[in-house]
């Protein structure tokens, strides 16, 4: 047995040295389209970023860094100037210029049948003009500080492709011409995508001559494929396998706190007859205790976040006290996770007029976030212990989000990934007053509303100065969480990648898996 392991280890080292040219990656979710502007979905975007590039991009901590743009600045509150990189070339050899960007921006909102459009990132740009080959100017209607963050999702195409190519042309590979470190080679729907290195890349030389992405959605099978040596790297390592893999000499694990928070949302909109609030005997309760911030604070105090992070998440979560981990932009230094204090919770409930508590049902998806249903079960047990008998109803996310948006729940568990990497994203979607015309509160499924908080959020969203905006966002976080308890943060998910020994990867907060960031050696 020991001899065989030795042999296997020897074989592994040899194949790594000889086959260093190829990298095989096991992905957890299937890529649905190669058109970089068709379906705004993490696996699609992740693949697109190998072939295409964006003007600005995020580093592994989601801080903005230059991409195809070398620098940018505001000329006045509504005009932005971008200086583009010289010497970047398309895979067909043509030079990259500002005209390509202008044409790309025109295509983005017009892709037919798009189920999730990228127009949400280009909408603020009312006018784009190329001053010369390497200078661009954007005009917005209102001051819009998030413009450089938004365009990290806008993949730039060559002008003639942006003007003519259809979604089918990308899927067939014909239109897959970008400036990125890898070129498209093969796509078998639902199975694999193969890329080859772009030797004329303007940046650091790609480390792999071939990259093969295999779609392996079953997590146990993904781990087995890594152990069998069929893939060199996998994403979304299941929490249950982490202790075992951490001890395995064949495997390296890397992880990072992600931009996704798991939180509890309350029905704070309805004054009466919230659908799943009952008295202790289970009869519907006329008043809605969840409108009282003291009750929400009591619920927050009743939850032992450390226990959830260590037992249920196997250490793959960090207890949360605000909307994003402190290292992100616009967070507050004054919001530690709420301490576990069941006595304090009971006292607050008594103060709010519910000394005997009341009954609740917690609704949760069961296939969307890491261990979502188990977390909900734990939360329900903590609340039951604190005097709020809580039932859990779990359902697939396809059902959960439809019902949640129809306001059918009183108390729900959900998650939010801050795509922009800063606090305005969760603030405006989860906590701002629901307002279709302004595009605010889009995922505010509890209809939380506070005029003071709304004012802070809209000031932040029009403040160009980064330092000032950061302070306003931090103040808004403090108001939303510590003062108003608009939602109760549970934890931030930690994402983990598994690799064959000898490879290294800078784990990313945005959960993207980038082959061009995978290196051999330390």
């Amino acid at each position: 047995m020991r001899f065989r392991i030795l042999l296997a280890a020897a074989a592994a080292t040899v194949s790594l040295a000889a086959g260093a040219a190829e990298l095989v990656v096991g992905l957890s979710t299937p890529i649905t389209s190669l058109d970089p502007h068709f379906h705004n979905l993490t696996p699609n975007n992740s693949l697109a970023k190998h072939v295409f590039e964006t003007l600005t991009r995020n580093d592994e901590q989601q801080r903005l860094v230059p991409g195809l743009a070398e620098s940018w600045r505001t000329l006045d509150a509504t005009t932005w100037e971008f200086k583009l990189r010289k010497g970047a070339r398309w895979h067909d050899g043509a030079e990259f210029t500002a005209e390509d960007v202008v044409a790309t921006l025109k295509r983005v909102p017009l892709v037919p049948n798009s189920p999730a459009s990228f127009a949400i990132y280009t909408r603020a740009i009312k006018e784009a003009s190329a001053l010369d080959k390497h200078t661009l100017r954007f005009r917005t209607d209102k001051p819009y500080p998030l413009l450089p963050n938004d365009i990290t999702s806008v993949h730039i195409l060559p002008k003639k492709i942006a003007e003519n190519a259809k979604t089918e042309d990308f899927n067939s590979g014909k239109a897959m011409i970008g400036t990125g470190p890898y070129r498209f080679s093969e796509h078998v729907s639902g199975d694999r995508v193969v890329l080859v290195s772009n030797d004329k890349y303007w940046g650091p030389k790609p480390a792999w001559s071939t990259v093969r992405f295999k779609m392996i959605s079953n997590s146990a099978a993904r781990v087995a494929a890594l152990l069998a040596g069929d893939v060199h790297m996998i994403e979304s390592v299941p929490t249950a396998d982490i202790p075992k893999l951490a001890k395995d000499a064949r495997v390296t694990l890397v992880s990072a706190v992600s931009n996704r928070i798991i939180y509890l949302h309350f029905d704070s909109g309805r004054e009466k007859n919230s659908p799943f609030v009952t008295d202790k005997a289970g009869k519907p309760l006329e008043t809605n205790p969840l409108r009282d911030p003291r009750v929400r604070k009591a619920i927050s105090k009743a939850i032992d976040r450390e226990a959830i992070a260590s037992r249920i998440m196997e250490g793959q979560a960090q207890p949360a006290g605000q909307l994003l981990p402190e290292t992100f932009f616009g967070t507050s230094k004054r919001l530690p996770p709420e301490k576990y204090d069941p006595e304090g919770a009971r006292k607050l409930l008594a103060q709010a007029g519910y000394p005997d508590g009341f009954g609740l049902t917690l609704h949760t998806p069961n296939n969307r976030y890491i261990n979502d249903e188990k977390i909900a079960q734990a939360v329900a047990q903590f609340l039951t212990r604190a005097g709020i008998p809580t039932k859990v109803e779990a359902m697939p996310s396809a059902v959960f989000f439809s019902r949640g948006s129809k306001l059918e729940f009183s108390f729900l568990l959900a998650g939010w990934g801050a795509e922009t990497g800063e606090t305005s994203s969760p603030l405006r979607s989860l906590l701002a007053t629901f307002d279709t015309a302004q595009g605010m509160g889009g995922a505010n499924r509890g209809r939380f509303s506070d005029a003071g908080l709304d004012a802070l959020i809209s000031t932040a969203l029009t403040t160009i100065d980064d330092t000032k905006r950061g302070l306003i966002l931090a103040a808004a976080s403090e108001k939303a969480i510590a003062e108003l308890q608009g939602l109760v943060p549970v934890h931030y998910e930690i994402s983990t990648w598994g690799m064959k020994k000898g490879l290294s990867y800078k784990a990313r907060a945005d959960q993207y898996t980038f082959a061009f960031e995978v290196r051999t050696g330390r």
Partner: protein
Amino acid sequence: MTVYVLRRLAQTLLVLFVTSALVFGGLFLVGDPVEILVNPNADQAEKLRAAAALGLDRSVLEQYWIFLRGAFTGDLGRSFVFGRPALDVILERMPATLEIAFLAMLISVCLGIPLGLYAGLRPADPLSKTIMAGSILGFSLPTFWVGLLLIILFAVELGWLPSTGRGPTVEFLGLQLSILHWEGLRYALLPATNLALFKLSLIVRLTRAQVREQSLLDYIKFARAKGLPRSRVIGVHLMKNIMIPLVTVIGLELGSVIAFAIVTETIFAWPGMGKLVIDSIFQLDRPVVVTYLLVTVFMFIFINLVVDILYSVLDPRVRLSEAKG
């Protein structure tokens, strides 16, 4: 016979219509695809745009009517997720499913009938007892568990076969097939075995039971008394009579192995229709789910028709024109 076939085809149309209505209505009740498809960061305006782009802003009856009108011209709608005609998306994945399904049926028939015969002819033999005990394990162990076990044993521990995915394909009669050469077949062996296990056990048990029952009947005794060689008694007289129930079961099982290879395909990351339909259900990609079920229903009806025709070949007493329904 022609009348019989035509009548069956007319019934098919009715069944397809009812299926489409049920699935359409069912998925409508499950949830709103827009909630799942749009990026979570999208605001209300983007949700409205997506609903309009996918035709989901109309009433459900209107949507169904548009679907029916399209269906009569052969257009079953466009996948929300892939943005391509749903039928194309499914047909593209079909060869992958068909090849492991046929491989699995081949394994189960080629192993199952001989093993069942042996166990039926020599019921007291220790080997027969082992076969029968094995068959109980075969259909009581859950597929996903056996699948993972196969991966751990043959791919992780022994390293003989690849753990997941489909091998390189070659074009054959316009289909992309991987099992026609060794490199591709290596990938197909584990999923096909996993898929075959249940069917194999079923065929073993069914064959054995038939053999035991038929061996005691008068025609077998008579054939023996006539002094026919044993091989002819078993190979011709016995085989012909045990084949009728077997053909029915094999036919139905072939249908189910194609339609419900979902678990195996998911575990082995086999890019077939089953994996596609699971992903589509989770994303509420209604055109793909509806089309998939229509294709499946059609396939079942077709297989049953073939089985009925085979009956009349195996047993001259069966007349197709007399059969009702």
